[in-house]
């Protein structure tokens, strides 16, 4: 174990460190806030929330500065314009301005869609395990939820989800899927969409949060289909590759009829001037996004290859996290890593008995993390088939 990790553990005592860090309560970890007071080389590695280890790129930062100072006190103004951001989305994604809705993170897009398109009589269909925002809100408002287990390949079971779409209000498709990290290619998505369109009246919400990290050439975003198709909504976020999770900005693309329905409910005063400026600039800084994609790809390949070299299989990840078959309960793996100041993902039922989700940090962080994984899992190199 590196000196810095050892000194951290010695400083706080293994027991208290582990106890503090194991008190998982989502991204609201008290331990994380506390750790910011430590010198950087002594901080634990946070590999459990799929966060981008870097913030926004320099052009986005510049735009955020301008956003809070340009003109006359923009931070004090109502009626902020999202024109710059909408135009940037149009320019980079090739969808018209009228087909764009902006949200306080894609969280707000998912919520609005769940509210508008589901009800006690029109259920929600979602994968299991999958990203839980829609199902959590559905529960709050009394919408029944049909959870469809992922298939043996750890992909969303699109056939079963299409079956479940009969009578549904909304089908939530996380592509790539969180937490299983794998995606469905264009053909599979196309076939699924056709089935749902023909056999049901459900809306399809496709969450492409990890879109920028996908390298699989068979993947295709459904964003242009969403413009023409009254029953498809695509959600995107600035929380991952663009490094803006904390300033809260995301968007959706859909047919204008769909947006008209959503806009009746959508709380449109949640957007702040820094996020509007930064997101627009970040989208236009395609060079930076490409660099970030390449960086993540390199770290991902490194970490995946390492697990393979130790005989551990994982899903074909197209995101900034891994879903690996450690063979031990996630809780044990988590507590073992925590004792070495490495924080990995929570339980993802029903796979918490043998699978772990590990977010990707920087290359340096992953080089340190694998030392811990090796120790915790008592791994040895195996011949790679």
């Amino acid at each position, binding site marked *: 174990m590196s000196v810095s990790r050892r000194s951290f553990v010695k400083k706080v005592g293994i027991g208290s460190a582990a106890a503090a860090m194991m008190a998982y309560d989502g991204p609201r*970890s008290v331990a994380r*806030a506390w750790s910011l007071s430590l010198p950087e080389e002594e901080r634990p590695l946070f590999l459990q929330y799929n966060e981008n280890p870097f913030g926004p790129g320099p052009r986005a930062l*510049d735009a955020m*500065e301008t956003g809070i100072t340009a003109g006359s*006190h923009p*931070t*004090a103004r109502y009626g902020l314009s999202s024109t710059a951001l909408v135009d940037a989305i149009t*320019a980079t994604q090739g969808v018209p301005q009228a087909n764009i809705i902006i949200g306080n993170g894609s969280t707000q897009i998912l919520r609005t869609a769940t509210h508008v398109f589901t009800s006690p009589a029109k259920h929600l269909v979602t994968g299991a395990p999958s990203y839980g925002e829609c199902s959590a809100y559905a529960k709050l408002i009394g919408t029944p939820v049909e959870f469809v287990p992922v298939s043996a390949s750890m992909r969303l079971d699109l056939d079963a989800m299409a079956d479940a779409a009969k009578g549904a209000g909304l089908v939530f498709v996380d592509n790539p899927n969180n937490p299983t990290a794998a995606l469905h290619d264009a053909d599979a998505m196309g076939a699924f969409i056709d089935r749902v369109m023909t056999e049901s009246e459900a809306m399809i919400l496709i969450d492409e949060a990890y879109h920028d990290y996908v390298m699989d050439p068979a993947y295709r975003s459904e964003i242009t289909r969403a413009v023409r198709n009254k029953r498809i909504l695509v959600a995107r976020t600035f929380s991952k590759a663009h490094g803006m999770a*904390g300033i809260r900005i995301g968007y959706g693309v859909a047919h204008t009829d769909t947006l008209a329905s959503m806009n009746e409910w959508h709380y449109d005063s*949640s957007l702040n001037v820094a996020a509007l400026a930064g997101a627009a600039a970040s989208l236009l800084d395609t060079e930076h996004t490409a660099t970030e994609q390449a960086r993540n790809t390199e770290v991902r390949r490194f970490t995946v290859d390492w697990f393979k070299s130790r005989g551990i299989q994982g899903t074909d990840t197209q995101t900034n996290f891994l879903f690996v078959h450690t063979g031990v309960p996630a809780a044990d793996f988590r507590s073992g890593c925590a004792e070495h100041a490495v924080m990995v993902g929570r339980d993802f039922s029903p796979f918490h008995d043998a699978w772990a989700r590990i977010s990707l940090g920087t290359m340096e962080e992953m080089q340190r993390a694998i030392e811990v994984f090796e120790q915790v899992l008592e791994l040895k190199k195996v011949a790679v088939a």
Partner: protein
Amino acid sequence: MSLSRRALFGAHTADGSERLRTLIAARRRESLVDELWPNLDEAATVAQPAGGEIRLMFNENPLGPGERALDAVREMFPGASRYSENTSPSMGDLQAALAAANDARPEHVLLGAGSGELLKDAVQAFTSKSKHMVTATPTYTASTRVAEYLGTEVRAIPLDSDGKLNLVAMAEASRGAGLVFVCNPNNPTATVHQAEAIAEFVGRVQQISPETVIHFDEAYHEYVTDPGYRSALSLALWTPNIFVSRTFSKVYGLAGLRIGYGVGHKDTIAQLGRYGLPDNVNNVGVAAAYATFHDPVRMRREIRRNGEARRFTIDFFRKAGHEVFESNTNFIFVNIGRPAAGMRAACQEHGIRIGRDFPPMEKTHVRISIGTMEQMQQATAVFAKVLA
């Protein structure tokens, strides 16, 4: 922007879209106000840059939040990827500060993306097709729009002839209601009910309809100068089914960063919080709010500045023969005896923007926000012309 800061962020400007070639951060003369704070008089007479319209339609703070707040925002920029639960200051820090300032605990405080989010969540949390909402007319209508979408019946009680909420009638109408929306001070009339009337109202509602939730919207609380006014917050903390909403958008000048909060009985706050958007509060807004909340000197200067400009503007209208309700906010509601739309259009031609229509009083009354003294001197010259 100082040289060192530009060096830190780099001199990049976005290439490509011309729209994105945003304005250079010119240090407008108003921003010099922050350097002049020790001398309030000088601060109040900073000249309006030529060519800019005067915005008196949204009840904004004309001087913004101040450079300290902006510095706090800047410090947060590199940490933009961190959720506000994990930043420093964090959501929790802001919540704790708000609680402590009100002799309460964090469980009594709920943050929102603007108090508007809390207004919406309250309607969703406490009303239904069988539990109506009571409000006033004219008053702030954001809650009403949400209620209408949800199919909640809305009973809007007319103000009395003094432009004040008719609390007696609102209490009567609260029987069986899910929610009573009480905007105190009231928007758009700028009137305020004093402590006794509020306490009596609460007592009446709790007698008539103890399950009804009372929402006091105190967005303009800090601007109140009526010595008989008391915030309902202390009542709300310890009385079931009451909460108060406040905002960082007005006196603190942070409308563009979207931070509001609710304070009230812990059970009511908990129920309201169940409907809040996850991760609703952005981290730069938290940083700015935390900074401004810990700058009470600035806030007091703003209240005094607003009071003077408000007095000047009210005096202008009264001398010109127009009735104005005594204002306890950063706007006034004037009886111009003709439709607001006409005056609004005429003012716009002179670069002054005043408030929207407020039915059912839009045929005779207009709402005008209070800007800087300089702005109000310019604006009243235009008003005189337009109303001649």
